């Protein structure tokens, strides 16, 4: 499917194909999410050289390595901080952060809220698979209640995080949620996020089949991907079978939009310009003199 006037998208053009097949498990949703991102990048006509991917630690963190772009695989929970420095220093780059539910909300939760507050132009994709997959399946801030993980062997007793609600409340410019089942919609959502001048946060519901799915008896990969919309089931006749699923009602699409000035713009106009510096996208990487 090619958007008008754009060459047909071939994902191989955006991958370090020599590294494939990737390390992710069979049926892992992260691959689909990656396709959606690269597809959106293609349709937004972002040059690979200008694309900077910053990823944290975890399965989501490893996604970046397959992208034929400037990729930075940084420390656990901190990709937003690295991206903040990068985006401030290099406003000419398209900075995209790929993070996971644990990376972004647990260890990196503080950075998320401040990145949202700051509204510095970048796109943050949080791949939510409800689990710490890389470390073998421990409970994460988004693990649904009652779910089994290696650290909740008797069922998760903690309530879960609504990442989008958090981001919206923290003032993120654009907040959206998509799911891997809906690749095209997800791609379109990411396009909006990429095009947004400010901090955009996209939560992507992505399945961990091999660890989370198996542990919780959620079925095969196709079953899990279909389950992403399971909560759409009508309750007008009462649900005859109870089964907990993702608690956050699965609203997808754009969830919030806070029209606020982009931080970099503000910094350049309010702080740098009075000193005779800072064009629209002036960076600080080049030697000044």
């Amino acid at each position, binding site marked *: 499917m090619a958007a008008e006037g754009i060459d047909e998208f071939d994902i191989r053009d955006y991958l*370090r194909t020599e*590294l494939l097949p990737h390390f992710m498990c069979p049926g892992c949703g992260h691959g689909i999410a990656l396709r959606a991102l690269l597809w959106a990048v293609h349709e937004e006509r972002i040059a*690979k*050289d*200008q694309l*900077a991917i*910053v990823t944290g630690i975890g399965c989501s963190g490893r996604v*970046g*390595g397959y992208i*034929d*772009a*400037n*990729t*930075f*695989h*940084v*420390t*656990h929970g*901190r*990709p*937003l*901080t*690295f*991206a*903040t*420095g*990068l*985006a*401030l*220093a*290099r406003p*000419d*780059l398209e900075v995209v952060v790929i993070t996971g539910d644990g990376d972004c909300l647990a260890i990196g939760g*503080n*950075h998320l809220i*401040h990145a949202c507050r700051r509204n510095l132009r970048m796109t943050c994709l949080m791949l939510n698979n409800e689990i710490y997959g890389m470390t073998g399946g421990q409970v994460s801030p988004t693990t649904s209640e009652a779910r089994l993980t290696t650290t909740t062997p008797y069922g998760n007793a903690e309530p879960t995080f609504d990442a989008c609600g958090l981001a919206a409340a923290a003032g993120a410019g654009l907040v959206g949620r998509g799911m891997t089942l809906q690749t095209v919609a997800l791609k379109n959502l990411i396009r909006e996020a990429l095009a947004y001048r400010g901090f955009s946060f996209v939560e992507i519901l992505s399945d961990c089949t091999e660890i989370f799915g198996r542990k919780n008896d959620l079925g095969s990969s196709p079953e899990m991907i279909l389950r992403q919309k399971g909560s759409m089931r009508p309750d007008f006749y009462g649900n005859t079978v109870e089964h907990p699923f993702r608690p956050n009602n699965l609203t997808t699409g754009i969830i919030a939009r806070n029209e606020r000035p982009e931080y970099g713009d503000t*910094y350049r106009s309010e*702080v*740098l310009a*009075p*000193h005779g*510096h*800072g064009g629209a996208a*002036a*960076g*600080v*990487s*080049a*030697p*000044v*003199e």
Partner: protein
Amino acid sequence: MGAGQRINLQGNHACALGAIAAGCRFYAGYPITPSSDVAERMALELPKVGGVFIQMEDEIASMGAIIGASMGGAKVMTATSGPGFSLKQENLGYACMVEVPCVIVDVMRGGPSTGMPTRPAQGDIMQARWGTHGDHPIVVLAPSSVSEAFSETIRAFNIAETLRTPVVLLYDEVVGHLVETVQVPDPGSVARAERKWATGAREAFQPYAATDDDIPAMARPGDGYRCHATGLTHGERGLPTQNPAEVERAMQRLLGKLERHRDVIDRFETFAAEDAEILVVAIGITARAAKRAVAEARRQGIAAGLFRPVTLWPFPEQPFRALAERAKAILVPEMNAGQLSLEIERLSGRPAKVARINRLSGEPIEPAEILKTIEELARHGR
């Protein structure tokens, strides 16, 4: 350095101005006593040169931000104090592994934990060396005056950029808050080292190639190299690897890189040390007290001398060993429970001849105390 001008400066401000002079255009920090003046001065100065100042949500974020900005091509710095320095350690390790130039200022205060925020100490000597986990290369510079705070900051940037390594600027609260007259050179007259940027064909480029000088050229985003940076052990292509041979080779190069460039790194000061029988080794404000004590001892006829490592880590071993062999006794005064003395004992060849003055009270060590110990060493030997 050119003529410039003489101005009165606080140590922290001198550090900030040194950074600007060295080409720093990105600063991220988080307030912490006694380092906050650095951030405040950077916030004031950076816009004037088109640079970016940002106060992040914590020290971890500050460290991440400067690494990110440096990977984007900027010369970067952050400043903190002990507790914050601890928080920066993981990302500092990342910078070591990924070989990202950056300067981290640690203005030492009493510790551990919250300790004495407003009192000086020198307790981070070992943290500065071994703060992050795993074997890693690190350069630590220890200025002892406001003037040096200025000049060593410049040197820190130049080492960082030249060798693609994080450089820690380590000084105590006294140096940080001391106001002295400093000869500030004209802008433009400061020698600035620039990073070795990748050039040439993308296909042939390897981001971690073992080049002649063991310092790989860095690819700047947007220049077409589209490289991968990772804290995972990586091979020459920058991609993660667990191949034992490849890992060994990569780590050997990383750790050996600084040794190969000691000429760029090493700096030390000696005072009456050539024939010293009693050699005092100190850094920071303590070194200045020691210098006065040594001068007084000489006046009394005691063959005392001073060795001050300005580059604290890696320790300037060779020059020190030469002096240490001759000395009958070595005295290490420091505002901690004995960190520098550990290294001195190791390097002296005879730990028994190393005497210590340790101070944990938050008070600087007076020259008289040092002199007293020198006199005792001279009388009784060790």
